[in-house]
């Protein structure tokens, strides 16, 4: 039995005390504003803390005939804890970390920011209309050994792995902990079933399915879904300034026409259909084929904010039917 308990107050005072070091995602804040301090620093998405919307990599100047290039070093202080929902945590641990923190070629900026941060996952008491985490291997109680896990339970917080990481002193109550575990297990049974086991392979075979055209039709190819998606990690390198300037590392989106534009002006993804297909394929086929986890955590953010109600869950379910046919 792993879990112990802490009082709301213990967590609240701990966060108060560490205030400057604790960052919370907007979604977690919205969900738990009644239990957690209200003035914590918030971020819109969990990823932006490590994968900055923009950052300067180099500063360059032409001095006489030589280019002088300096690396941009950050010296801003950095938080130590990030409070977030299970899906957001899974997105960091099993998608963006996997992408950026590879052994041979880590993304230095990401790694530097990510390394010192402990994730504090707060499980979901309520499942939103837009959530579909159980389809993609996540759950409202998703935990990870490297992170702290909290769950509000009958006036207390159920706590896992928080003893050393946050130096809290929890109390034990094996009976109550058992009740929590049972609750988790029972709730998970009621959630929709995961996607079929070999869906990534099957989807891959449907690259040329005419259904894509039909599905992509009403997407306007903005970047709202990818920019606010906790797992989307595409970026662009560009320069700003001719004789003096900066090399920029900025978010990019496969929805944009320039994303795959070649210097020859050929674009292998000329229309919305190819771009939408890329977005779905990457998350549900290419990424899982290579890294065993889905590239989507089912958080439902994109469903909620899409201006034209283009719905990835519906599309994926449509594709499941199509590949099983």
């Amino acid at each position: 039995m792993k879990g112990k308990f802490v009082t709301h107050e213990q967590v609240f005072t701990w966060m108060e005390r560490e205030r400057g070091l604790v960052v919370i995602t907007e979604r977690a804040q919205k969900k738990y504003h009644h239990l957690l301090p209200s003035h914590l620093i918030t971020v819109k998405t969990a990823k932006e803390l490590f994968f900055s919307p923009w950052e300067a990599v180099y500063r360059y100047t032409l001095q006489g005939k030589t280019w002088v290039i300096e690396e941009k070093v950050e010296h801003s202080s950095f938080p130590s804890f990030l409070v977030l929902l299970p899906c957001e945590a899974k997105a960091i641990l099993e998608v963006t970390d996997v992408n950026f923190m590879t052994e041979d070629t880590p993304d230095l900026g990401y790694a530097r920011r990510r390394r010192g941060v402990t994730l504090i996952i707060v499980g979901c008491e309520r499942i939103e209309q837009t959530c579909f985490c159980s389809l993609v291997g996540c759950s409202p109680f998703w935990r990870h050994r490297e992170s702290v896990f909290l769950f509000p339970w009958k006036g207390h917080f159920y706590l896992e792995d928080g003893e050393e990481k946050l130096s809290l002193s929890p109390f034990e109550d094996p009976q109550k902990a058992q009740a929590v575990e049972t609750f988790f297990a029972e709730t998970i049974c009621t959630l929709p079933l995961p996607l079929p086991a070999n869906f990534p392979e099957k989807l891959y075979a449907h690259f040329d399915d005419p259904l894509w055209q039909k599905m992509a039709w009403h997407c306007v190819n903005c970047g709202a879904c990818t920019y606010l998606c906790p797992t989307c990690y595409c970026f662009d390198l560009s320069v700003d300034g001719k004789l003096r300037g900066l090399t920029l590392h900025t978010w990019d989106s496969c929805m944009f026409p320039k994303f795959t534009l070649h210097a020859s002006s050929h674009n292998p993804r000329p229309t919305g259909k190819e771009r939408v297909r890329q977005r779905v394929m990457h998350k549900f086929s290419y990424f899982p084929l290579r890294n065993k986890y889905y590239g989507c955590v089912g958080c439902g953010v994109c469903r909620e904010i899409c201006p034209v109600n283009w719905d990835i869950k519906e599309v994926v379910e449509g594709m499941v039917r199509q590949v099983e046919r």
Partner: protein
Amino acid sequence: MVELNAWEPKIVAFLCHWCSYAGADLAGVSRIQYPPNIRIIRVPCSGAINPLYILKAFREGADGVLVSGCHPGDCHYLSGNYFARRKFFLLKELLIFAGIEEERLQFSWVSASEGQKFSQVIEQVVEGVKKIGPSKKGLKEFAFHV
């Protein structure tokens, strides 16, 4: 730190080739004094100025922008400045609406024979921009360049 009284504004002046640019030339030839803060960009007609040029000038660090063309009725291309005037009006009002000081962006009609007026305009523009100080909140304060 730049000391404030040592600070001199940088002003980009888009001048029409047929009038204000010649007016600036005349001011020079006639040895009429005006502040050295302006960087002149010659354009074929005020009508050739895309409002984005003006925004870009601010973005690249101008503290103020002056646009100067031929008097209404005198445009070398007959009506370039009439069309331009509408765009300029909208841009100027839009910037003010967005909370950017009106002194940042100024306009004038200066003919080729108005060397004196040209120097006065520059004086007024520089004075106006000096009064409001460096473009901190304008478009200039782009995080990378400061």
